[in-house]
């Protein structure tokens, strides 16, 4: 009987080469049909023709950070990183007094530290508000000065990365609570509140940001009495807050509408007041749902701060453009835009990555 049973195992056969391994992967993913094969070849051809010249320009033929514009112009085959070397401090800090530029540098560090700390959910406690208040006070002291022996620097001289960060962080921080109120107001049963919120949101969303900025910077001074002026940076900041609040309110409203009616009724059944209900039951769920559209707004808003260039404020893009208008350094716009593009990308990509993590953490209960 046992003769029928093979007692010695056969040697393991490798699966056919065309079903596993890199070749199979290529076949099933890149060459699985004739049109995909053609596309693959076309894309490869494109990459082969584009990447070597780009790398050559970017690195191989490039001039170092200490090169001069004359040298770069004589041999224009590569990037001229001397432009960044020469203009780095101007692009990063704008017109801030040269000897005091450690202050905006420290400001950037304070902001990044605050933002990184805020990402940790262990710090999401009421006392962390005090940390923020302290951080912002420190930033105000660093940027304005005038106390502790620091020279006073008026905010017309602020520029570069600190300005971009201040506009977007303060803008978003103020706009966020406002937008929650607007979203709640829009869903309110009280007609006056509802009409007010709907009108505000639709009015602001109906005009381009650029026209709001123009209104704030060009029209407003004409309405004020002669000699009375509201600070230009503040005007831009308020325009940004108004704009961001309207957009975020709509993102949050989406979250509110996704909460099942039973949640509202259960909260009412527990005898919670309106604000208790919102704070403890509805908003925590609604905001978690609204994370993707909110982060979308954050990211686009961070980049939109570059529009302040049209009202004569030098944000990161503005300083790069102004640096290009130096008669000795004209025409190096590829280097300038690539450089600030990388800075923008780092910020936006971190936001996006963090929001994905947050979404996973907050939506654990919903995962199936």
């Amino acid at each position, binding site marked *: 009987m046992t003769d029928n049973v093979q007692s010695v195992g056969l040697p393991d056969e490798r699966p056919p080469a065309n079903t596993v391994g890199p070749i199979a992967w290529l076949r099933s993913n890149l060459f699985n049909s004739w049109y995909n094969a053609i596309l693959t070849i076309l894309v490869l051809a494109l990459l082969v023709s584009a990447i070597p010249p780009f790398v050559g320009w970017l690195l191989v033929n490039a001039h170092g950070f200490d090169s001069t514009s004359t040298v770069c112009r004589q041999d224009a085959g590569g990037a001229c990183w001397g432009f960044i070397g020469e*203009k780095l*401090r101007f692009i990063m800090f704008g017109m801030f007094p040269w000897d005091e530029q450690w202050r905006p540098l420290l400001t950037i560090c304070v902001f990044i530290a605050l933002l990184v700390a805020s990402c940790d959910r262990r710090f999401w406690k009421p006392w962390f508000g005090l940390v923020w208040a302290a951080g912002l006070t420190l930033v105000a002291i660093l940027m304005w000065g005038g106390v502790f022996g620091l020279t006073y620097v008026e905010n*017309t001289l602020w520029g570069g990365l600190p300005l971009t960060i201040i506009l977007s962080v303060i803008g978003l921080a*103020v706009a966020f609570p406002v937008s929650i109120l607007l979203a709640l107001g829009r869903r309110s049963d009280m007609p006056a509140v509802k009409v007010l919120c709907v009108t505000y949101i639709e009015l602001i969303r109906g005009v381009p940001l650029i026209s709001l900025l123009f209104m704030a910077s060009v029209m407003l001074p004409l309405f004020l009495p*002669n*000699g009375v002026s509201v600070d230009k940076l503040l005007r831009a900041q308020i325009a940004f807050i108004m704009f961001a609040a309207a957009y975020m309110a709509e993102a949050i409203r989406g979250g509110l509408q996704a909460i099942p009616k039973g949640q509202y009724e259960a909260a009412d059944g527990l005898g919670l007041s309106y604000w208790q209900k919102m704070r403890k039951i509805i908003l925590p769920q609604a905001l978690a749902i609204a994370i993707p559209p909110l982060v979308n707004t954050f990211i686009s808003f961070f980049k939109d701060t570059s529009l302040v260039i049209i009202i004569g404020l030098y944000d990161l893009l503005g300083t790069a453009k102004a640096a290009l208008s*130096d*008669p000795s350094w*004209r025409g190096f716009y590829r280097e300038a835009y690539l450089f600030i593009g990388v800075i923008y990308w780092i910020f936006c990509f971190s936001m996006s990555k963090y929001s994905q993590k947050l979404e996973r953490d907050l939506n654990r209960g919903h995962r199936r």
Partner: protein
Amino acid sequence: MKSGLLAAAAAAVVITASAAAGAATLDTVKQRGFVQCGVNAGLPGFGNPDSAGNWTGLDVDYCRAVAVAIFNDPNKVKFTPLSAQQRFPAIQSGEVDLLSRNTTATLTRDTSVGLNFAPVTYYDGQGFMVPKKLGVKSAKELNGATVCVQSGTTTELNLADYFRANNMTYNPVVIESNDEVNAAYFAGRCDVLTTDVSGLAGTRAGVAPVPEDHVILPEVISKEPLAPAVRHGDDQWFDIVKWTVFATIQAEEFGINSKNIDEFANSKNPDIQRFLGTSPGMGKALGLDEKWAYNTVKKVGNYGEIFDRNVGPGTPLKLERGLNALWTKGGLMYAQPFR
């Protein structure tokens, strides 16, 4: 967090209530301690920040000249970078005392926009640039040419007028952004590039791969007199700006510059004595120190020095004096008499 934000916001609201509306600008400026000057946010050679963030340029130097005439200090001036759209509201609303931002003086701006234009500090005009290898010597030879031009500007209209007036045809390549117009020209998409001559010179010097391969034709087909401006309603302030510009031009005519000005202190020429304030009267008439013109030339320079320093042949822009030479040398720079 909120309290911190509120404090920051409150500190940021700077409400500077000056004396009653219509008060003399000079008094306001003296009280404030500096001149508010509107400049271009970035025009090479006319108004641009250098690597250390200091403002430089021909327009910028006229802001400094006015500051010197009043305070004898070229740093008592605050620059407000303005976009093209912002510049008129800024001067109308009193946000700036002086607009020195490559602004073309025109009738409507003088009247309905409510500006008073000081003497012209730079005579510009639209011109043509062609590659040298075409061998074109005059704009009259451009019949049938392909012309790169920026859209939505008076440049485009002037171009059409010029070719029609001369019975010539052309193919426009109309592009919106200035950088791309330049790129199109250098890529060979058109035979001719047209914009203001100062812009052409700047492009040739700063953007052209080989500047010597391009020539700017002698014809100038439009008038663009660029002048500082103040708002209507304060004649004394207007006089100060106007005569500060004249002082730089007059100094060059006298042969006085920032280096040799002290050699003229004992000059017997009554014109020079009045100019330098050694025989008084001129300063008082303007409401300024008698040494105002001396200080201006000493600290900022005469017109020729300002021109050479910012846009002249020794700078990357390499502009020739042309129309901006003194009237005695065939240009248009002419100061009214100091008496």
